[in-house]
Structure formats: structure tokens, C-alpha cells
């Protein structure tokens, strides 16, 4: 698969970043990935979905782009990502082209699952991204096991697992973190606390003020960070990953943010009080980043507009590509249940 665009390897960036304060180049990378995520998801949710071109449900991360980007850019290529359903940028950071994302959402063979699964249920082991299953938080023990393996093999790598506030109520979340903590495996836990799980607000989800309040119960450090500030997230994630790489065990980051959309494309989210939309619209992480870029003179409006135009062109092309990608042939139905088909299965 072709990379999204010729970007340097994240490790190169990371090294540079280690040497320096937030800088123009890093900020522009933030901008690129956040904008790309926004553009791809807008296209999916607001255009293709309404045109009936999308198969199945659509979950997007509008307003939360700073989280996968700020965290994802702290990773080395051999670090392993376990994205949640609102972390599309992680795929781009790993060089997966938007073409394959659109094809995935359209059920085409060009998608990462060849049409076997849909939307964010995708992964690519060659790029160290593990596909979620639907059951919220099921990834947490699996990520703990991946981190255990990274340690077992003597690598310096870590696993990153992403989840929402609602997912923290699941037994798997608890079991996975506890096992990871006891075994001191290199695991970075990233909570996108967007204050809702589908229609369920935080106060019906948990009786504590912060997800981070649970970390002491696992004997692990946690920090709370502004989930719409990509710089703050990046810094927190760097601390987290440094901790994990140093063999000190899991580290949790809770990113306070807001889901600027319904739970999925068919949800009008009437249950969200109007003032919250307005409040959080002002905190949009991309607008905020843009302001910083302009203020610090790391970019001028023209550059940003050009970048956005490039992204739109890239996305236009990717949608076309995906639409040309064929649907899977029904003959693929029985493939890949097992490595070798069982003797009695019929083609």
C-alpha cells in the first residue's frame, strides 16, 4: 500500500522533537494529520454516508483529532497501536493511504479488511496496528499482552491502547490494566474522555470525577490533559512513553474532550445540551492549532490554505480510487476462517 504522502518516518520526527521545544515542523505535522482526519471523516459522514455510498455505521472523531495525532506522533514504527473507533489519524500516521479507508467504509476489496469487516474495525499487522473488535475495552487486555510480548522479546517498544470514557466501565478494561500493571509491561493507556458514551453522560457512567482517579488503584501514574490541545497531549504522551520504555510499566493519559457529532452518523444527539456544542465548538483542536501556527508565525494562512487544498485533492482522488475498487467476490466468503480450510467445509 502506498503511503498517504511522502512523510518522514515518525521516529525521525521524534528524535528531532526530543532535542527541541515544539517547533514549526512538528506543528505542521500535527496540522496535516488532524486536518486529514477531519477531511476524510467529513467526507465519509457528511457526504458519502448521505449519498448512500457507505456500508454500515459511521463513527467519527470530530473534535477529538488532537488525541490520536498528539499521541500517535510520539511512537516509533515498531510501537503497536490499538486504536479506538475515533482514532483514524493513527492509520495515517502509519502511512496507510486514505484510499484504503474510503474503500473500507464502502465495503470494497481495497479496504484493509477486503470487505470482511467495516468502518474502524480494521488493522494492519505489518504496520503494527491492531484492529478493534466492537466490544468496548476488549483491546485493553490484548494490548497488555502485546506489550508483554514486546518486553518478552527484549525490544524497546511499547503498545498504545486507546479507549473512551464508556469503555472504562467494562470488566476487560479493569482486568487488562491490572494485569499490565502487575506485570509492569510497556503500555500507554490513552482515554479520550469525550463525556458521552453514545447517549450516556459521564455521571451515569462513573461516580468519580476523572478516569485518572482510577490509576492509583492499579499503582500506575496518570495525568489529565486538555484533549483539544495537541501540544499538551504530545508532551503528556512523551512522558508516558518514556515511562513505559524505561521499564516502569503502564502510564495513563486522560484527554478531556468532546464528541462534536452524534455517536454515529444516524444519531442526531438531541440528548446533548445545546450550550455544550457551542462551548466546545470554540475549543476546536484544529482551529486552536491553526491559531498557534499563525501566532508563532510557524505558518501563514496561505500555507495552511495550500495544505488544506492539497488534502482535499488527495481525498478527492482517494474517494475516486475507492469507488473504483470492486466489491469482494462472493467466492471470498469462505476464505481465511482458518489458515487451512477444514476438510469438511464446502466451497
Amino acid at each position: 500500500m502506498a503511503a498517504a504522502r511522502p512523510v518522514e518516518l515518525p521516529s525521525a520526527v521524534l528524535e528531532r522533537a526530543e532535542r527541541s521545544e515544539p517547533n514549526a515542523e512538528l506543528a505542521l505535522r500535527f496540522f496535516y494529520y488532524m486536518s486529514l482526519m477531519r477531511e476524510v471523516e467529513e467526507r465519509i459522514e457528511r457526504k458519502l454516508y448521505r449519498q448512500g455510498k457507505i456500508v454500515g455505521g459511521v463513527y467519527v472523531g470530530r473534535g477529538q483529532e488532537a488525541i490520536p495525532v498528539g499521541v500517535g506522533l510520539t511512537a516509533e514504527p515498531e510501537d503497536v497501536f490499538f486504536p479506538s473507533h475515533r482514532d483514524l489519524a493513527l492509520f495515517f500516521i502509519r502511512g496507510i493511504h486514505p484510499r484504503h479507508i474510503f474503500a473500507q467504509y464502502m465495503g470494497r476489496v481495497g479496504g484493509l479488511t477486503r470487505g470482511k469487516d467495516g468502518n474502524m474495525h480494521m488493522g494492519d499487522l505489518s504496520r503494527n496496528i491492531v484492529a478493534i473488535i466492537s466490544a468496548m475495552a476488549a483491546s485493553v487486555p490484548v494490548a497488555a499482552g502485546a506489550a508483554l510480548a514486546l518486553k518478552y522479546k527484549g525490544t524497546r517498544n511499547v503498545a498504545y491502547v486507546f479507549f473512551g470514557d464508556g469503555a472504562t466501565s467494562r470488566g476487560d478494561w479493569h482486568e487488562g490494566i491490572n494485569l499490565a500493571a502487575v506485570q509492569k509491561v510497556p503500555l500507554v493507556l490513552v482515554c479520550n474522555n469525550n463525556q458521552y458514551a453514545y447517549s450516556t453522560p459521564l455521571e451515569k457512567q462513573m461516580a468519580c470525577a476523572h478516569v485518572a482517579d482510577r490509576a492509583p488503584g492499579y499503582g500506575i501514574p496518570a495525568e489529565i490533559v486538555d484533549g483539544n490541545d495537541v501540544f499538551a497531549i504530545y508532551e503528556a504522551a512523551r512522558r508516558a512513553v518514556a515511562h513505559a520504555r524505561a521499564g516502569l510499566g503502564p502510564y495513563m493519559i486522560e484527554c478531556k474532550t468532546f464528541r462534536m457529532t452524534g455517536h454515529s452518523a444516524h444519531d442526531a444527539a438531541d440528548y446533548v445540551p445545546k450550550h455544550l456544542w457551542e462551548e466546545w465548538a470554540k475549543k476546536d483542536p484544529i482551529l486552536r492549532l491553526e491559531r498557534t501556527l499563525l501566532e508563532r508565525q510557524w505558518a501563514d494562512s496561505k500555507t495552511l490554505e495550500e495544505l488544506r487544498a492539497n488534502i482535499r485533492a488527495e481525498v478527492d482522488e482517494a474517494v475516486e480510487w475507492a469507488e473504483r475498487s470492486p466489491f469482494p467476490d462472493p467466492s471470498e466468503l469462505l476464505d481465511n476462517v482458518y489458515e487451512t480450510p477444514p476438510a469438511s467445509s464446502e466451497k
Partner: protein
Amino acid sequence: MEVTYLEAIRRGIWEEMERDPNVFLLGEDIGVYGGAFKITAGMLEHFGERRVIDTPLSESAIVGAAIGASLMGLRPIAEMQFADFISCAYDQIVNFAAKCRYRWGAAVPIVIRAPSGGGIHGGPFHSQNPEAWFAHVPGLKVVCPATAYDAKGLIKAAIRDNDPVIFFEHKALYRRIKEVIPDGDYTVPIGKARLDRQGTDLSIITYGAMLYVARDAADQLAEEGISVEIVDLRTVFPLDEETVLASVRKTSKAILLHEDTLSGGIGGEIAARIAEKAFEYLDGPIVRIAAPDTPIPFSPPLEEAFLPNAAKVVEKARWLARY
């Protein structure tokens, strides 16, 4: 009045909540939102927060809490947002709920509602038919209504039942099936199959959404002069063996049809009972038609190839009729 399958379930629950103050609801997004499929729409407003409880995202706790409340004499109805997530509550269901009465005489009158089934491009985790995961666990009852009439009558029976009932609602039927059903109270007995259509040449034994596939196939076959009897199981565990055997004794040929995957599905159990108890009546092999042994794929051409359909049934039925 004509109502949808969905509305039939909704009314059944509503009426039972009016009738019995011990009936209450718990689940994810069932209150303010009215449930992912809107089965519980309006109930929070009408019955209040005490009886319509929006829970954290925790299927095991939802089922566990339902069990505990039922032990105290309440009649909880727990909703799984999608049937696929019932796996997260598996231990509570098969080990706690199913075994209390046998072990120490404690009744667990809970209903677990679970929207199941494919045909909506939901992919591997929003389309499963998990009935066979449970239709093997003594102590549980597993219900899979196909019609709006049965959906209402069975949900009411399930709520009044003194044993744990898993109630699989087929998502693809929710808004597709409309029927005139009686107003007001009636129940449909759990554990009783229904003769959907009389016939003489062969029996199709089925349940859930596949009832409609069976009817389509039977219509086509009728034009060819093949007379099909259809048995709608309604309850898949414990099975209504008598109705199944009576039909097969009459027609001497059986097709077992289900949407769930073939191996280890309900069809095997039915075949075994026929092959043991109606062997002498059989004039042909017992034919199973079901989804192949794969996860449920997402993309339309794959899902279409995966799901049993009338054409597949007609082809096999023709062969069997001629046998």
C-alpha cells in the same frame, strides 16, 4: 391495528410495566435515548428513572444486577444493545442465572433482550445470531420470535416466566414486518412451536427471520406443485419436539433452516431428534440450510452470499421432494 415487529415488542413491555410494578428496565442508552433501536422510546418519560435505568457500559453488571434484583422479587428486563455483546455477560448468564434454581431453589425471573441477526450490513459484531451459545444451557429459555404477534405475546410471556429467558429480536424484522395484532393483553406460550403453514410433501422447520425465507420458498414451490409445511419454532430452547416430530411424521421429509451458522447450530439438535424419534417416517435425508461456518461478513455481496435465501431453499427442497 397494524404494528411493526418492533412496536409489538415495545407494547408488550409497556403493558407489562403497567400491569406489574416490579417490572423494570436496565441497559445502555435505553432511557433518555430510548434504546439504540428505540424499543424503549418514551418509557423513561412515562415510567420514570426508577423503572428505566440507563446503566454504565457493562453487560456483565447489567445481567448480574438483573439477577440480583430478580432474587429480591423484581422482574428485570435487561437490554443488550446488540446481541453480539451478550458474550460479555456469558458467565453471569450460563453460570449464575441458569443454575440458581437447580442448585438452591432460587428463581431468577429475568428477561435478557438482545437484537440479533444479519441483513443490515452490520458486519461480524452487529449481526450475529448467538442463540446456539445458550440453547445448550439447562435452566435457560431461548426465544426467537418471527412475527409481530408472537413478538408481543412472547415478550409478555417471558416477563411473566419464572425462569431466565433470553429474548432474541431479529433486527432485520424490526421495521420490515408489519401485522395486525390484537389490542391489549395476550401471551404466547414459551416452549411451543407454531404450525405456520400446512403442507404434505416436506416440512421446513425454522425460526426468526428465516420464517419469511421459508414462506417465499414455499410459495415458489407451491407453483411447482410441491406442498410445503412450515413449522416456526418460536422457542429454540427447550425445543417443542412434539410439534416438530408430528410435522415430519406427516410429511416424511425435513428441511431445517436457520440464519445462524451451520455447525453446532439449532438445526443439528432438531435433526438428531428427528433421526432418533421419527426415523421410520423419513423418506429422505434430513437437509440443513444455514449460513456457512464463517463470521458474518460486512460487505453486501459477501453478506448476501452468507445468508440463506429462498433460492437456496427452493433448490434443496426440489431435490428433497423428488427424492
